[in-house]
């Protein structure tokens, strides 16, 4: 089965390419900033989906990898003058390595215990970075403006960051598709349905879960480095917001847990909705309450999310929406 012949593979990629490409063609700064946030959430949601959607393990600490990977990458840029690309890769690899170590321990826990442990990891990581001298403690790290000279000025550096993020997002979604349609991915789905049965059927569950965790942790590390480089600074409060982890969860639920297109659509829809609520004078101060209400309605009435609901309601679409 060639992936590029499957509509389920190229529809999400095409959507991202077109949506993200517009800013590259138009070259407008405001559009780039808006799309940057959008792409960031699409990539975060798609990578979290590899763990949460396929294995059913709820991870409240996805943002730990965003924060720690971002911190590591940013550290090499600001203190050692590395170029953005190797620094982002090191950020991603650090996150992946951390996930491998954590995963061996934490993934022995099941269900709600795992979810609780990830909340603990998030809090512990934030408190640790707050106190860790090389990372600047509570004030964090900054970049020197001279660093932009290497990229031909600040605007060029920002466009490069944006292009890299677009590529990362495309790769994340492609990987998410490849994993789901591989033998390994089927093992993950089996774990989601019934972990004991999967084990009996010959899925090596601890290894499979850890690999899924590592893959899902790699992308936030890269995205974190890109995001903090764009901002020019990094501090613990920004890097480890439990809130952001949960927003990403909401996006996945909105689009459809365990689907490829779902996290993409969910992230886009949530971001647009939040943008609207924040700017509309009527809902401005109540945007959090409305987002909560939306989440509650989804959880109670359409737990399969948008894509899941469409697939169930219109079986014809199953070939098109993966």
């Amino acid at each position, binding site marked *: 089965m060639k992936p590029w012949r499957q509509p389920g593979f190229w529809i999400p990629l095409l959507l991202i390419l077109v949506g993200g490409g517009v800013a590259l063609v138009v070259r407008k700064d405001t559009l780039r900033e808006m799309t940057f946030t959008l792409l960031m959430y699409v990539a975060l949601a798609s990578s979290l989906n590899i763990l949460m959607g396929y294995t059913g393990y709820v991870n409240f600490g996805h943002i730990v990898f965003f924060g720690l990977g971002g911190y590591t990458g940013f550290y090499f840029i600001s203190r050692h003058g590395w170029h953005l690309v190797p620094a982002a890769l090191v950020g991603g690899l650090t996150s992946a390595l951390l996930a491998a170590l954590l995963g061996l321990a934490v993934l022995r826990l099941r269900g709600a*215990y795992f979810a609780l442990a990830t909340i603990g990891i998030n809090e512990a990581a934030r408190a640790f970075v707050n106190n860790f001298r090389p990372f600047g403690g*509570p004030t964090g790290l900054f970049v020197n403006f001279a660093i932009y000279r290497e990229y031909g000025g600040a605007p060029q550096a920002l466009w490069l960051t944006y292009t890299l993020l677009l590529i990362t997002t495309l790769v994340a979604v492609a990987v998410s598709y490849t994993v789901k349609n591989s033998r390994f991915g089927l093992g993950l789905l089996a774990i989601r349905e019934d972990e004991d049965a999967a084990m009996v059927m010959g899925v090596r569950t601890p290894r499979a879960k850890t690999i899924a965790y590592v893959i899902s942790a790699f992308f936030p590390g890269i995205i974190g480095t890109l995001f903090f480089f764009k901002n020019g600074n990094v501090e613990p409060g920004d890097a480890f917001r439990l809130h952001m982890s949960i927003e990403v969860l909401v996006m996945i639920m909105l689009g459809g847990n365990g689907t490829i297109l779902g996290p993409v659509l969910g992230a886009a829809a949530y971001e647009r909705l939040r943008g609207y609520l924040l700017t509309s004078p009527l809902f401005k101060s109540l945007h959090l309450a409305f987002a909560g209400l939306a989440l509650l309605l989804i959880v109670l009435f359409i737990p399969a999310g948008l894509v899941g609901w469409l697939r169930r309601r219109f079986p014809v679409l199953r070939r098109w929406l993966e």
Partner: protein
Amino acid sequence: MLAQILASLVDGILLGFVYGLAAMGLSLIWGVMRVINLSHGAIMALGMFGIYLTFTHLGLNPYLALLLLAPASLLFGFLVYGVAVHRIINAPYLSSLLATFAVNMMVIGIGTAVFTTSLYNVDFSLGTVRAGVLALPGTRLAAAAAAVLITAGLYLFLYRTRPGKAIRAVANNRAAAALMGIPPAQTLALSFGIGTLLAALAGGLITTFFPFTILSGSGYQSKSFVICVLGGLGNPLGALLGGLILGAMEGLIPIVLPVSWVPVVEFTLFVLILLIRPSGLLGART
């Protein structure tokens, strides 16, 4: 030096009673219905503002106001259960995590719109009690005493009354309890209500000695998780003991490490206990 250690220890333990009270609510809800209540912190914040409003606008003594807060929070718990939890009580736990978090977002969202995120405090004092080298604020002693009384009340309720016994039966085996004629929905709603009540009362007690914002609840919620795991999830008496351990740690750690390391130690311990003994240090479930 020794006097300082003793003072920090006693201070921490008194605070620990209130932490334990908050964690008890979380633990009860988990034990009975296997739901991790992520709206716990928001409800504590509601309790804080409940006491604040009655104290500043009605001039009510905070401890008397707790008596008003109790039925109000019980009703609020029924409401949350009916609206957000009842439909998904048998769904995968992701649903209940997200549903209770949605309630949290709504409460915090409305709360922020009404109270903003600025700092409030209840200007109430009971003087200082001196005992040897110790100087204890009266409000902390009173809060610890109130926490003990409420815990005793909860135990009498759970072990001596029919609805309490029904809650324990449902915690033990929901299907079997239903077969014995215990209405599951009402019992679950009651447990959720009591869990909410405990959270709100703990929040109310905290206002008598710490300033707070609408967002303060989330910090106490994280502490409650740590305490629940220390004492064994689903074991309310363990939660009180876990609270005392955490309070003692918060008192003692700053003597050897900078204060900002306290959460690092707490949450590392939390993850380690989950890994080594997920049933908690005190093991057995009620």
